[in-house]
């Protein structure tokens, strides 16, 4: 039983407001990912949940108990840091058992729990090494082990993989997912600014911007129905194309990149069109929803062609100052300057108002 409730939490450092009135509910057993650009307040939010920072306003409840006035050790949380934060003068065994020993847990039980964690994370051979004798991945496993040993109600991860190289990151990502399942779906909060990590790990994602939660939902909800252009641009890789668009209510046509799209087509994609003519709209098309077609509505010269072998990305200029990136399956070969015609799948179009909010 460990739910987490964040109720109208705000945080200011001096006069700078870092977290603005965030409310969030995390269900028992959920792995929720906080994602957002650098400096948006993810770590601060996590540190407030951990008790390392005081909330300026609002309440935090863990497992039905209000904790925002409790010290970190009394909140039933364990945290894994980006820099691992192992005690350098203690060996792996000492690092794993430190918190328990300090809490006065019996010796045999400490040993048993340490050994269990070591087994889960395959640390058996490393128990007598000092942190400096471990590789980055091994250190991170020890850091995670230190969290497991404490048997917390909630695990907090602050960008735990960002110091690892790309291959190891993919591997550890899978490890964390396995761990989540192995620990009977313990509640976990995972901070990252890598949207691939967010998509692959999360039961639910909360997208942060400027101290606010812009949207929270399952990865597919965010992918299919981003609440605004920020979330739309943040989730998905490569990110969504945005074209400046104008809606003419008389003719029921949307003009974007020199093309006129029928209102009825847009309505099929679930878009609710404004009753009156509007300018400053943004039409969003994901690269994977564009395909090559001689009758395609967007044509232009190829600027850049990125070939990854089985798939490729082509960047074209349908009109000056605007770029469309399309993800092409199969093998293709374009050269800069070639003509290219792209067709958007009308079922997956997104339209955002002048204020950035989704129109649907």
């Amino acid at each position, binding site marked *: 039983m460990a739910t987490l409730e964040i109720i109208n939490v705000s945080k200011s450092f001096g006069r700078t407001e870092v977290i603005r009135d965030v409310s969030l509910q995390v269900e028992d057993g959920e792995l929720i990912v906080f994602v957002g650009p650098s400096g948006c307040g993810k770590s601060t939010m996590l*540190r407030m949940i*951990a*008790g*390392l920072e005081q909330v300026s306003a609002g309440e935090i409840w863990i497992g039905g108990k209000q904790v925002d006035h409790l*010290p*970190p*050790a009394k909140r039933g*949380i*364990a*945290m894994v*840091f*980006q*820099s*691992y*934060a*192992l*005690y*350098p*003068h203690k060996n792996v065994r000492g690092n794993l058992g*430190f*918190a328990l020993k*300090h*809490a006065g847990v019996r010796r045999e039980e400490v040993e048993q729990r340490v050994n269990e964690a070591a087994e889960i994370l395959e640390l058996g051979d490393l128990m007598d090494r000092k942190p400096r004798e471990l590789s980055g991945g091994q250190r991170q496993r020890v850091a995670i082990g*230190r969290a497991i040993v*404490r048997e917390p109600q909630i695990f907090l991860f602050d960008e735990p993989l960002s110091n690892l190289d790309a291959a190891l990151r993919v591997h550890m990502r899978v490890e964390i997912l396995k761990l989540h399942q192995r620990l009977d779906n313990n509640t976990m909060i995972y901070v990252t600014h890598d949207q691939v990590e967010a998509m692959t790990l999360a039961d639910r994602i909360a997208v942060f911007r400027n101290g606010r939660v812009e949207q929270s939902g399952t990865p597919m909800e965010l992918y299919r129905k981003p609440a605004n252009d920020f979330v739309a641009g943040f989730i998905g890789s490569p990110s969504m194309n945005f074209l400046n668009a104008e809606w003419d209510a008389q003719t029921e046509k949307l003009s974007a990149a020199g093309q006129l799209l029928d209102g009825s087509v847009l309505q099929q994609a679930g878009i609710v069109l404004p009753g009156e003519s509007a300018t400053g709209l943004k039409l969003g098309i994901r690269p994977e929803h564009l395909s090559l077609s001689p009758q395609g509505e967007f044509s232009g010269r190829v600027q850049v062609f990125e070939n990854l072998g089985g798939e490729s990305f082509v960047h074209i200029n349908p009109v000056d100052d605007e770029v469309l990136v399309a993800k092409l399956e199969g093998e293709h070969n374009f050269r800069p300057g070639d003509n290219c015609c792209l067709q958007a799948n009308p079922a997956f179009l997104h339209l955002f108002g002048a204020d950035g909010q989704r129109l649907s």
Partner: protein
Amino acid sequence: MASLTRKLERGRAGLSSLGIHAILIAYSVLALFPLYLILLNSFKSRRGIFGDPAGLPNESTFSTKGYQSVITNSDFPLYFGNSLVVTGVALFFILLFGAMAAHALSEYDFPGSTFIGLYLILGIMVPIRLGTVALLKLIVDLNLANTLTALILVYTAQGLPVAIFIFSEFLKNVSHEIKDSARIDGLSEYRIFFEVVIPLVRPVIATVAVFSMIPIWNDLWFPLILSPGESTRTVTLGVQKFVGQYTVDWGAVLAALSVAVVPVLFMYIIFSKQLIRGITAGAVKG
């Protein structure tokens, strides 16, 4: 061709390291020569000292009279003990309070922390001896004249600025995440300091200890002014006893000085490995 340049380069590297070693050796000789003279002459009779100051003691000049008079005819063991107590206790306080202050300044953000940090370090620029008159008055008012406590207090104050300065530089680099992690593990702020931070900066402690100890051990000024009493003399002051108005017992003076060097040497030997690590840590890591 390539091998030739390589050879040349190796030659140049060898030459420059030879040069560096020559300079270092010359400096060492220069620094150690007085010590050598003191040690040498402490084993000679008075005539030996003046007859041939640089000569090795031989059958006719060898004498341990100096050491004998140091040990038997004076309160030298008492002075030695006084020096040890004053230096040891002052050093303990300098290390403890210096590390604590530096930790507080680097870890906690409180109003005026920058000001307090500057204030504490300002002492490096203002020699404490400028305040001797005021200090003397204060010590007399506190009824501490002619006590070891007076010396301990003054030396602690004298050593703190440099200690805080050195500790601050290193404690600034101790990862905040380790401390946060200890907080989550339930350690109190004191235990974080003693069990997490202190072990991380152990080499620095050795550095600060050696740097702080020597001026205290060698000081003549404050013992002379604050506690010249017979029972509270330190070694440096005690040695003056052998310097009479008309005659100087050079054998005893030199013997006393030789013995006085022992604790300092001892300290260096114990801490040298850590000391070097402490001094080079900043340089290597940048």
